[in-house]
């Protein structure tokens, strides 16, 4: 799981072009949106694309992303359980 968390952080930094953020800056349990990493609705769309492209997970219901993208740990758990690649 630790490996997936680390990989996920790097993938998010790259996909969202978070130039000034390092993987160790991201708290695994902190919210990704709002106060935490400060992502917004466009980032949510980018994360949906990332999930499909990298892990073969197709989110049919965008509203489900609200829960899945709550934090790095929640995201990693979801990917581990649903990934097809």
């Amino acid at each position, binding site marked *: 799981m630790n490996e997936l968390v680390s990989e996920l952080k790097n993938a998010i930094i790259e*996909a*969202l*072009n*978070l*130039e*000034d953020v390092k993987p160790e800056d991201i708290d695994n349990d902190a919210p990704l949106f709002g106060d935490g990493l*400060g992502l917004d609705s*466009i980032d949510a*769309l*980018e994360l949906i*694309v990332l999930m*499909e*492209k990298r892990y073969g997970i197709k989110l049919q219901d965008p509203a489900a992303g609200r829960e899945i993208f709550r934090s790095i740990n929640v995201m990693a758990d979801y990917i581990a359980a649903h990934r097809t690649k």
Partner: protein
Amino acid sequence: MNRIYIRAAEQISLQQPLSEAWMEEPVRVEGPWARATDPDFRRWLTPGESRRLGTILKRALVTTLSLLRKTGLEHPDAVCVGTGLGCMVNTERLLETLCNEGETMFSPTHFMQSTHNTIASLLAIHTKSHGYNITYSHKDLSFDLALLDAWMQFRQGRIHTALVGGYDELTPSYFTLLKRIGYLGVEGEVPGSEAAVTLLLTDEGTDALCELAGLRILYRPTEKELQTALASLLDEAGIVRGDLSAVVTGVNGNGANDLFYEAFTSRELPGIPMLRYKHLFGTGYSAPAYGPYVAAHCLSRGIIPSSLLYGTMSPDNEAPRALLVVNQRDGKQYSLQLLRVCGN
């Protein structure tokens, strides 16, 4: 009628960015393709502000922010942009993803930034300028039409300040395509990416670079129509041909296209020296935006750098008083802009 002035003009190009150092020490660039020299964007934009922006958007934003900082103006009444291709890098990424991975896999950021009017929209959002906002995309005439639109808004009294910019970016693949159709890549040309913006206003103040005394745009004009347009442009400004210090042309090393500039100048303005600027700033759809930029700074400083001279005639040693900026492509479309020193 409101008189219209160029208060400031800024550029990013092959020359030193956000600077007029080219007037004293021009950077000489050889083809076949040169990259623009970017400023340190981090001085202007936080990582958060710039993380989604492609290079063309950063250039547009930084030239604009520099201009606004210099002039102290915060919210221009209008934002008018000319661009031949818009955000080409993002457009290519979007198309590549569509072709390789299907339409559900592309990045929303690349999608949003693949439209031509992204640039003008971004400038408006970032500077909170919520007035008139428009984008023209007509190949080499894009900037000129944006300028004409602003001019008409000024003359009708609808606006008092306007940002008018020209922006394009050249990618390796698009350069290859343009070379194949003979638009770019002729030996002697310096193809590049362009970013130039001018701030126009109706208040001469004490700091304006020059007056934009008039402009004309013509499509497939006959010689007679071109002659008439030039005559009316000069008449309207109350000057005669002999008052022109020089003609600022878009001569770029492509002989087939340069011939039209030479024919126009020798026919309509014999004895008036020709200048050029694309060998310094680059050639591309928005390169004409450097025309008024160059002319405005020459008029403001009262000098014509020798690096701009073209042909056998040189301007006299007096400070230039009026410059005609001419942009044309293959003799089909012409744009004439008359700039003169303030205080007339």
